C-alpha cells in the first residue's frame, strides 16, 4: 500500500500545487456565473498565455525528455512531431491521424536506427 501511495508529502504537494491552483478557477466560474464576456480583452490575453504555457511544456518534453523518451535521438523526436503535425494539417485537423502518423514515424525511425 505504501508503494501505491508513495510518501504523504508528495500528496500534499499535489493538493497545493495541482488541485488548489487548478480548481480555484472552476469555483470562481461557479460563484460569478454569468455576466462574463468570453470575448473580453483580458480573457483573450489569458488564453494566449495559457496556450503558450502548453506550448512551452510540449517543447520541454521534446527538448529534455523524461525516462524512456530520452532513448530516442533528438532529431527523430522533432521529426516525428513535425510529421504528425503535417498529417494533422493534411487531413483537415484530424488529431487521431496526426498522432498515429507521428507515432509510426518514431517507431519506424527507431527500428531503422537499430
Amino acid at each position, binding site marked *: 500500500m505504501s508503494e501505491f501511495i508513495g510518501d504523504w508529502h508528495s500528496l500534499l504537494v499535489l493538493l497545493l500545487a495541482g488541485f488548489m491552483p487548478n480548481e480555484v*478557477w472552476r469555483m470562481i466560474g461557479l460563484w460569478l456565473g454569468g455576466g462574463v464576456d468570453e470575448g473580453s480583452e483580458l480573457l483573450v490575453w489569458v488564453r494566449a498565455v495559457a*496556450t*503558450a*504555457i502548453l506550448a512551452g511544456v510540449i517543447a520541454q518534453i521534446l527538448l529534455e525528455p*523524461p525516462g524512456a523518451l530520452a532513448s530516442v535521438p533528438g532529431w527523430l523526436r522533432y521529426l516525428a512531431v513535425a510529421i504528425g503535425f503535417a498529417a494533422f494539417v493534411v487531413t483537415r485537423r484530424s488529431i487521431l491521424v496526426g498522432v498515429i502518423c507521428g507515432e509510426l514515424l518514431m517507431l519506424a525511425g527507431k527500428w531503422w536506427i537499430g
Partner: protein
Amino acid sequence: MWSVTSTILSLVLFATYLGIGALAHDTHFSLGWALASTVFVWAGPAQIILISTLGSGATVVQAAIAVTLSAIRLFPMVVSVLPLVRSPGTKRRQLILVTHFIAVTLWVECVRLLPQVPRGRRIAFAQGLGFGLLSVCLVATALGYGLAANLPELFGAAILLLTPLAFLLSTARNCRQLADVLALALGLALFPVVSLLHTGVDILISAVSAGSIAYAVQRWRAAQ
C-alpha cells in the same frame, strides 16, 4: 448517442491519459499519486505541467503558478456550460460536482449534447458523462503507468511521445483566433531559447512573453 466524434474525442483523451500515466511513472511519482491527480486535478494540461515542472525540480510555488495560469481557461468554460445545466430552482451546491468535471472534453460534449436533454435531467446527465470520462481516464492513467513500468524501452518511448503529440494537435485544433495560433508557435519557439537561461521559471517567462506578443500582434492587426 456516442457518435463518431465523441468516440474520437474519447480516444484522444484515452491516449492523453496513457501518456500522463507513463510520464508520472518516468518522473518517479507513485501510481496512487498519478490516479489522485487525475481525480482531483482532472485537467490534462495542468497534470502534464504539474508532473513535468515538479519532475524537473521546480518548487511547489513555481509549479502552482504554472498550473493556475493554465487553469484560467477553465473559467470561461464553466461560465458557458453552467447556464446550459441549471434550471431556475437549482442551488449552487448542486452544481459543484458538475463544475469539477468541466474540462475541455466535457465542455465540448455538453455544448453538443445537452440541448437534446430535458432541462430537469441535465445535472444528472452531465454528472454521468463526467463520471464516465473520469473512469475511462483512470483506467488509461493506470494502464500508461503500468506499460511504462513493464514495456521495452521502445514502446515506453512511444507512449511518452503521445503527450506532446496529442497536446500539440488538440491545442492547434482549439485555436480560434490569430492570438492563439501565434501563442502556440511563439511558445514552442521561445522555450528552447529561454531554457538556456536556466531560471527555474523558464516556462513562465517564455509563455508570458509569447502570449503577450501574440495578443499585441492580434490587437495591432485589428487596429489596422
